[in-house]
């Protein structure tokens, strides 16, 4: 039967068993025991995929009742965010607002209030969409992903977590428990920008920049883009090139050119590859300018 007759967004046209573990250990066991199991938290990505029959899991493992996956914690040099923390809770957290303004901007950019009341940061990351704004923020902040699995726990750098569209490095029975996000120092400026077709849209292209500055010079740079590659994309060559340079208009312009040339976008319904390359240049100029504390709204 063809897809057009199998999809049905009135209902979830898939039968599954539902599990509600209360500990990470139980969840891992369930995931390990059922190869066709999927973890679910907010359901904002999974439920639409099931309605479209893109995924037909035989088991759903609800992570929302697991207390240890919830909450935002200020740990001094870093902030810990539980994977099943709702995006709205991340956004409302004073710790996030104050200490991780870049992540705050990224999370605010996801969907609508309703979506953020349902969706979780872990879901935004594990969905492994190259357009996920939350994932982009974590990559740009060089966050660490905490993973639990049958073999115990491990950590993965956010930038290494994604293996392709919809694919992560998680193995069988593994789930993400949280994120450790280093808090940028007072000498770090950040900026996140995204462009969509309307104010409620998956990003056609997005960029997150973090610059550690001393005087007018860049000490350390992180430049990450969304929707320009199979995964959220860091650009080390641009970051290295920026390092030690005086940040002025010419530097910004040249770096933006490198960003534009360094991405590998495709053409899809949201935008053409050419568009993304061209927009990346302008967005990089704005993001570097703002993160570097140059004029707020440059007229180029």
């Amino acid at each position, binding site marked *: 039967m063809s897809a057009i007759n199998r999809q049905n*967004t*009135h*209902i979830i*046209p898939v039968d599954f068993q539902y599990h509600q573990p209360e500990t990470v250990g139980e969840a891992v066991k369930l995931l390990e025991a059922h190869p066709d199991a999927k973890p679910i938290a907010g359901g904002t990505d999974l439920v639409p995929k099931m309605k479209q029959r893109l995924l037909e899991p035989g088991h759903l493992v609800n992570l929302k009742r697991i207390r240890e996956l919830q909450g935002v914690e200020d740990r001094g040099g870093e902030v810990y965010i539980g994977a099943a923390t709702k995006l709205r809770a991340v956004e409302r957290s004073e710790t996030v607002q104050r200490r991780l303004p870049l992540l705050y901007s990224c999370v605010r950019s996801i969907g609508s209030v309703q979506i953020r009341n349902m969706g979780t940061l872990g879901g935004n990351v594990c969905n492994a969409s190259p357009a996920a704004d939350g994932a982009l923020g974590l990559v740009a902040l060089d966050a660490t992903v905490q993973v639990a699995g049958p073999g115990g726990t491990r950590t993965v750098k956010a930038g290494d977590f994604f293996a392709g569209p919809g694919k992560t490095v998680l193995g069988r029975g593994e789930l993400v428990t949280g994120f450790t996000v280093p808090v940028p120092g007072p000498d770090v400026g950040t900026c996140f920008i995204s462009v969509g077709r*309307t104010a409620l849209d998956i990003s056609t292209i997005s960029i997150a920049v973090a610059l550690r500055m001393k005087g007018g010079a860049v000490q350390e740079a992180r430049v990450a883009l969304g929707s320009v590659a199979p995964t959220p994309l860091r650009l080390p060559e641009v970051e290295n090139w920026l390092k030690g340079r005086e940040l002025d208009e010419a530097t910004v312009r040249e770096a933006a050119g490198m960003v534009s040339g360094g991405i590998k976008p495709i053409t899809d319904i949201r*935008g053409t590859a050419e568009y993304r390359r061209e*927009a990346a240049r302008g967005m990089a100029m704005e993001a570097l300018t703002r993160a570097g504390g140059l004029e707020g709204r440059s007229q180029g």
Partner: protein
Amino acid sequence: MSHASTLQVLGRDTPRQDGVAKVTGREKYASDMSLPGMLVARVLKSPHPHARVKSIDTRGVSDPQAVTLTPQEVPGIRFCPRLVSTPEATYKDWRVLTDKPRYVGEPVAAVAAESEEAAQRALEAMRVEYEPLAAVYDAFASMEEGAEPIHDVIELNDQALKVERNVACQMEAREGDPEEGFKAAAHVVERTYRTSRRYHAQLETKSVLVRPEPGGGVTIWSTTQTLHNTRILIHEIFGIPMGRIRVVKVPLGGSFGSSIQVNTVVPIAVALALKSRRPVKLSLTREEDLHDHCSYQMVFRLKLGADSDGKLVAGHLDAWLDIGGHQVQAYPLLGCVVGWWVSLYRLPHKSYVGKAVYTNKVPSCAFRGYGNPQITWAVETLMDELAEKAGVDPLDFRLMNYIGKGDLFWGQGPTVKSIIQSCGVEEILSRGSEMIDWYNRPKAGSQRGRYRRGVGMGRGYHTSSAGAPVPGTVVDFGGAMVKLNEDGTFDYVSAMMDHGGGTMDANAKIVAEELGVPIHKVNIVNADTGTTVYDVCTHASRGIYSGGGAALKVARQVKDKIRENAARLLDAYPHALKFRYDPERDQAVIYAEGVSGRELTFKELAYAMRHKNLGTVAAVDSYRQPSCPPHFTGYFVEVEVDTWTGRVRPLRVVAGADIGTVINPKLAAGQVHGGFAQGWSMVVNEDLPHDPATGDLLNRGFLADYKVPTTRDMPNLDDFTVFFTDTYEPTGPFGAKGIGEGALNPVAGAVANAVQNALGVRFYDLPITKDMILAAVGGKEGQA
């Protein structure tokens, strides 16, 4: 407002009568309805853009409650789902279920079962074998020799009609001598324009509930703009006597033209209900709805010539309509496209060739404006270019050439002509241009830097109904009933549908105004085909002008009867009696002036008439309006273009509308606000491309990839000004005209002209995407 000064009810904001039901969630739309013992239906849709169904195997359906339906089980009638034209203008090429699908998503079979889940399981157990055929997705490729024929034979005027080269229908028109006209022109501009396929995105998907009745009849609750045409079509297809078909009015969750025709789900659900002998509900999913209908995609080659004084002298238009797999109303649309065009500006010499072409895509149907937004965008874009060439300010150029009061007007096509009797174009343009500071707008292309602002304008109109002094090929009349209740209130009954604009409330207010009572004394009665006289359809912005015209005609008759009966009871002369409203008693009073005791409240009158067995004061009648007066609109829009991202933002909107007498100011302004949102989105976003690899929609039917504007995409409250002109339409009820479609038609032209003003680059394709803007700006001047 000079004309409005004597009005008591009209021109004031009054709460809509269905407001409480709508804000409390108690309003039941077709998709909300259910009945005991009801089955839920699902449609089996073609995955192929063009194919022959070789076999359908339902043996896999194991559910004993499931009822399946195949093309062999439905009447083999060819029909047109829209019944607004006379037979010689009605092309029939639809079937209830097809054995030759012509677009991805076309209904091939159906099933009803105890629940949506059960119906879905049954649907997936059905097996269909197809023989795929070559498919074509472009109107021009479709007309080429050797292209796969999409329809061989269709019907026109109940005669078989052979389709040649996939041309569904065509029309030509000519006045004067265009060739000579162009020779005399000092300035000529010719351009080719391409519009997109837009999806209505009405918030309620198409839905129907059908209950089979004892004796072979059916009761139907459906998303429709026309109760009576639904009944006629179901009668034609199934042969059920019309008295046994009852189509009941239910509120519509938006329509915008998508339900002018009887929806594909209706006859399918009727067939399932007849077969199963149980109520059947069929409500489309959003992805199915996106495969059900869209706007007409049009390509125009437009040429206009002006003399050295800036007067237009000649015009030629070629129009190609890509209509998708079936005709809903392609032929009347060919007439309207030329009508919309020639009724914007005076063209002594003009010619037109229009062709509607089949393609293997989702069928097109009317979408708010019915081609008018498309052609007005092209004309208003070209008018700017021609003005520039002629060295005249674009606004002044329009003032020199527009069609207004006293001019012949044939907006609804060559068979629907009348003379314009009211016109607010000058007021719209002068007040609007002042508010936006038109003459100080930037010089096109003069700006550098990232953000560039531009101001543009566009003007236009839409007809209020399709009325005319003589019959044409368009059916357009309506009717109403008004009766006096025993408590002195009135019931207003009409088959007319309210899409949400407040049409029925407006018409109730017209009744109240005529009868001299406050609006709370006129009750809008829910109705069905059995309790109403024919009304063609709520479309063509005819709700107030025609529906209100019918209400007024009937209210006058009721008033005469009140007068006659009161005269008898009061022993007075009917023509000498007067009316007033007494707020203390909350009653209208009829009285003989100066004669004490000779008065009756309407309640007393009805009371006395009941006890003296004199009957009910009531009237029912049909009404055909003598004209279809244009309601004129004009938009001045300021935009900001971000040349780094290609994003366009609306900064300021000034909209002027000549709708004659304003009946409900806030709801009338609401039409303008909504019209702007749709027109804006038509320019910057909306398109429904097909994937040439599969023939399916590129977005596969999901709104995630059909974006419509949100709260944040629209200008702030202080930056959106709407004003109405002081005009009075002599043929309209209390001077009123329409607004629904005029509110949209000129928006695209205004926005596109504003973008051109900001960038100095003109676009000839819609939508003007951010991709196109970056490509154009980048190609021109790099990262300036």
